[in-house]
């Protein structure tokens, strides 16, 4: 079975939309982090899809995806560490109540 490119792109766009929406609306920091993972993975899908349909003889998209996953893992680790520290100091992780990074 062969999926057409536009179908795959549509799934990817849907995932991207969900991710952005979640990142902007959720109060819980863990959820925001998870939504950011969604955004990153939608991009991965895009990369793999274009690699498959535009230049199948080369694995460029896949290589990029591996990089993105590595960076995402690192980012998630740093993010979770920050969240852990915030939780220890404030006893909550409501992102709309954390505004220390202003002037």
């Amino acid at each position, binding site marked *: 079975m062969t999926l057409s490119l536009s179908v795959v792109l549509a799934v990817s766009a849907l995932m991207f939309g969900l991710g952005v929406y979640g990142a902007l609306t959720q109060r819980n920091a863990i959820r925001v982090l998870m939504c950011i993972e969604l955004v990153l993975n939608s991009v991965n899908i895009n990369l793999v899809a274009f690699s498959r349909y535009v230049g199948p003889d080369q694995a460029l998209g896949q290589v990029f995806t591996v990089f993105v996953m590595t960076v995402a893992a690192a980012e998630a680790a740093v993010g979770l560490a920050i969240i852990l520290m915030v939780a220890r100091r404030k006893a909550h992780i409501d*992102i*709309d109540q*954390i*505004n220390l990074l202003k002037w």
Partner: protein
Amino acid sequence: MAELAWLVPVLPLASFLFISLAGHTVKGDGDRIGVAAVGASLLLSLAILIDVIGGARVAADMVWAFFGSIQLRMGYQVDPFTATMLVMVTLISFLVHIYSLGYMHGDVRYKRYYAILSLFTASMLGLVLADNFLLLFIFWELIGLCSFLLIGHWYEKQDVGYAAMKAFLTTRVGDVGMFIGIMLIFFHARTFQFDGVAQAVAAGDFAGAALAVAAVLIFAGAIGKSAQFPLHVWLPDAMAGPTSVSALIHAATLVAAGVYLVARAYGIFAPSPTALTTVAWVGGITAIFAASIALVMEDIKKVLAYSTVSQLGFMMVALGVGGYTAGIFHLLTHAVFKALLFLASGSVIHGVDTQNMHEMGGLYKKMPITFWTWAIGSGALAGIYPLAGFWSKDEILLAAHEGGYTALFWILVIAAVFTAFYITRATILTFFGKPRDKKRFDRAHESPATMTVPLIVLAALAVVLGFANSPHTGWWFSHFVYFDHPHEAAASPFVLFWATASWVVGVGAAILVYGLGVISRRAVIDNLRPVWVLLKNKYYFDELYHLVFVRGTVAISRIVGWFDRVVIDGIVNLVGYGAAKLSRATGEFDLDVIDGAVNGIAVLVRSGGAVLRRLQTGYVQSYVLALFVTVVVGLLVFAFGG
């Protein structure tokens, strides 16, 4: 030996350096080192003289600097004239050095005295060795400096300081002329060397009015240094210095430098009748004018000072009328007998502690050596046969007579009468008659050997030196030192008669007035009161110069001072006031406008920041929203904006 001539001035110079730097470390402040150095120079000079008599000549020089294509050479030369001068200077200096051991014993500035005496000797020797005008001028100024320092030896007394300054400034007037003259010579002859200038004159490159002007300007320097009329005023005042200094500097050497200069530069005088006549007449006027003042002086040193001025005038006349050898010979004999007279007067002053002859009298028994040496010296000065002065003065009279200068001849004869009169008067007042000051007479005593031995040596020389240029030696000196060609002096009975008559009349008159009292001194003065007052006041020259130059200078300074205070200071103050006003205005501009602009920018930035910082909320999600919106808008613009 003559090649070692450079060593002659170097020895006293070394002694000067040693005494002034390390004199206090040795016994007697290094006075014996000074004596030894000059003594060595004397021996060396004698050896050089013997060499030169044997025919040796030395001229050594080296290139010192370049003026464009012109070489400036410096060096020394030894010819008969220089060799003779070397011996004369070192001999007198050596004797004065010895004499000073006694005369200056226990002086406040003994070390300084000996140091400068050495420096003076070195400079004077350098002057007679110099082979060009520039080097001569350098030493010329050095001896002037030493003269200043030695006249002012007892500078605590105000008169002494003034006398030193007067000597320095008066000679400086002549020196300015001399320097211009030297530059004129350099301009025309393109060299400073004596022989080079002589060659330029001989070749006709340097002649006419320029030559005459240069010669007269050079002579101006000689007028100042040799105390000729009208710059004679400094020499009598210079007697404020120690008598030993007067003997060395103001009788034998420094004042003779003027005569030396004219003789050395004779090559530029000889072709110019104007210059020669100027020299002759200035000398003649000086000779009679100074001799007449010496007639009435009461200070024994002042008598000798005016006598020196007068005798230098004789030498100038000799050079001016063409008696080159006669002038130089008189320079030598005069150096000996006048140094002798000064040293003898110093011995008297040492004994009685006064210079006023009216407080002396009857000293011949108390100071026999001083008296006899003085008598020989004064006989030589008066020109009594066979003493030195007879031969040299006779030569000068002969030269004037032969040169056809009849008026000058008679002037010199009268000056010679005056000379015999004043020196006899001084002798009688000092050594004969009753003691006029009992206390001073009682403490008078013969001076120590260090002072009498030089007197005896000089007296012996004053007896024999004249024979160097006499028929008995075949006019030897005329064949040794001469200009162009030897001048064979033919003895003239006419001149001989008047030369002898002059001293007979002078000495006789003085004995009649002062010795025997046949002619009353009072009566003479009363009959000639206006003349006596004029002479007593030295023709009012000091007063005239005071009025014209000192007062004149003060008046000019007043006017210049007023101008300075009112006009120059006014302008300066005005400029200052304007600058202050201007800076106040620019200061205000700075404070208001520039600072305002700077502060305004700062305020703008601060208020802008206050507004813009509201954007930074600290809520992460608002940042992300802004980012998202920006990207979407950006994409839309990119996609549809064109």
